[in-house]
């Protein structure tokens, strides 16, 4: 192989190694951990604080308008919300768009029945160490994270429903 190509590959490797070293290993809370408390403004204008929802089962979903699996997943959560709301279930969709307008345009298209919280400043995302988009956490009545889902694949919404039902029985 030509010396030039070999040198170029080496330069790229060195750059990438250097950049890789700059990362840190933040991650979503593990099952059993207390869900970190946070407050954020919702699309209805009210401030919502997680700790005020103690006693209810809460599903927190992190999404963005530019995240295609997120857009697929969100409308599917409408059903779970409608079915279990009365039994003490709350769904908070945390949006991480830099531009509020992008999020609002997407909300109009998706027609969601549950509240969306705006986390443009990424404070909540950082607090939770969100390491995938989308990320879903199911929190029990005592405020502990019980299930963590990274990404969205076909059928995840059925898992969420199973887990919510199970936690509502506690």
């Amino acid at each position, binding site marked *: 192989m030509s010396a030039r190509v070999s040198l170029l590959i080496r330069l790229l490797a060195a750059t990438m190694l250097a950049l890789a070293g700059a990362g840190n290993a933040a991650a979503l809370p593990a099952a059993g951990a207390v869900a970190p408390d946070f407050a954020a403004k919702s699309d209805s204008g009210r401030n919502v604080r997680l700790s005020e929802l103690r006693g209810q089962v809460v599903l927190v979903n992190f999404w963005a308008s530019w995240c295609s699996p997120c857009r697929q997943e969100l409308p599917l959560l409408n059903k779970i919300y409608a079915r279990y709301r009365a039994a003490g279930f709350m769904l908070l969709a945390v949006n991480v768009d*830099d531009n*509020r307008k992008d999020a609002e345009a997407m909300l109009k298209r998706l027609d969601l029945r549950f509240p969306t919280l705006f986390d443009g400043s990424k404070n909540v995302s950082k607090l939770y160490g969100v390491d*995938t988009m989308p990320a879903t956490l199911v929190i029990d009545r005592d405020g502990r994270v019980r299930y963590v889902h990274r990404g969205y694949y076909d059928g995840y919404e059925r898992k969420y429903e199973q887990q919510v039902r199970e936690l509502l029985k506690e």
Partner: protein
Amino acid sequence: MRMQLRTLVRALWLALAGLFAAPTRGALLPEDRVDLMYHYYNGGGTRVDGPALLVRKGIGERVSAYASYFVDNVSCASIDVVTTASPFKEKRQEYGGGVDYLYRNSTVGLSVQRSNEPDYVSSTVGATVAHEVFDGLTTISLGYNQSRAEVGKAHTDFSDHANRYQYKLGVSQVVTKSLLMNLNYETILEDGYLQSPYRSARLLGLSVPEVYPRTRDSHAVAFGMIQGLGSSDGQLRSSGYLRYRYFWDTWSIRAQTVELGYGTRLDERWLVEPRLRHYKQSAASFYADDFTTQMVFMARDRELSDFSNNALGVKASYLLFNNRFRLSRAALNFDYEFIRYHYNNFTDVRTGQLYEYKANVFQVFLSGWF
């Protein structure tokens, strides 16, 4: 060279296979879209125009397929043609199609393409693999293309063929949330009849047939970067890109290409992108404007000469609407490019001066996303 390249490709494949990716859905298939275009080129006595169509549609969550159709209506009175023959018209049609399959963080693609002209028919098949690593910040891609062309000469029995094998390797890296870099390498190995049956060379001022080698190995390495520049209310408003490519082959041609572009949103509907391109190459070892003695290989194709070109272009996209007629978005686009070619050792035999010419390239196309 070929053996070493194959070893490298195999080694990289093993390295990729050794990685285990967390089940993150980082990789995405290309968007569903349809593009309908009219293109027009006019320069150096040649006029080429025609329609082009591209349709891409996802099938389910994992598969995306595309089909493309492209026509070049050629009206050719280029310098080669007017000085050695007579102006002609012909039509080239190109059909292409492919399918991409997404599995976790990898995308595998297969494609075919066929190009038909009255005296040149080529068929190409290709495969690509792209794999995301490092939580989707790095994408490594490999590509292979194989094509065979049947070359003929109008009004004669002449027939020959040419084979082409292309190997591509690319790495794309997210450096910051607004900076992307990529590095690409491509080698093209050709054998067979690699010249034009219509062109002649000059030996002491007289026309003689061109004779080309029957193999050509070429290499290109390109580096590119895209940097997000301005933003307002958290939305990206502009970006800039820079690309550099270095090319070399076994015909002794060395070429460099530099491209610079800037894209900006003027308002909610208009996106404008001016760009610059500079290209410079040195001549093939068997090229001469006028040979003084007979050589084993002789060419007078200005594409193999010592020349440069500079291009200035601009693309403007106008957002027509969002969410109507089952389309999530539709845009009307205009693109104009002005190119100046300047040859350092190819003479315009009509004037005796070094040849140069200007070209205008124009596109108008409708894009729809669904």
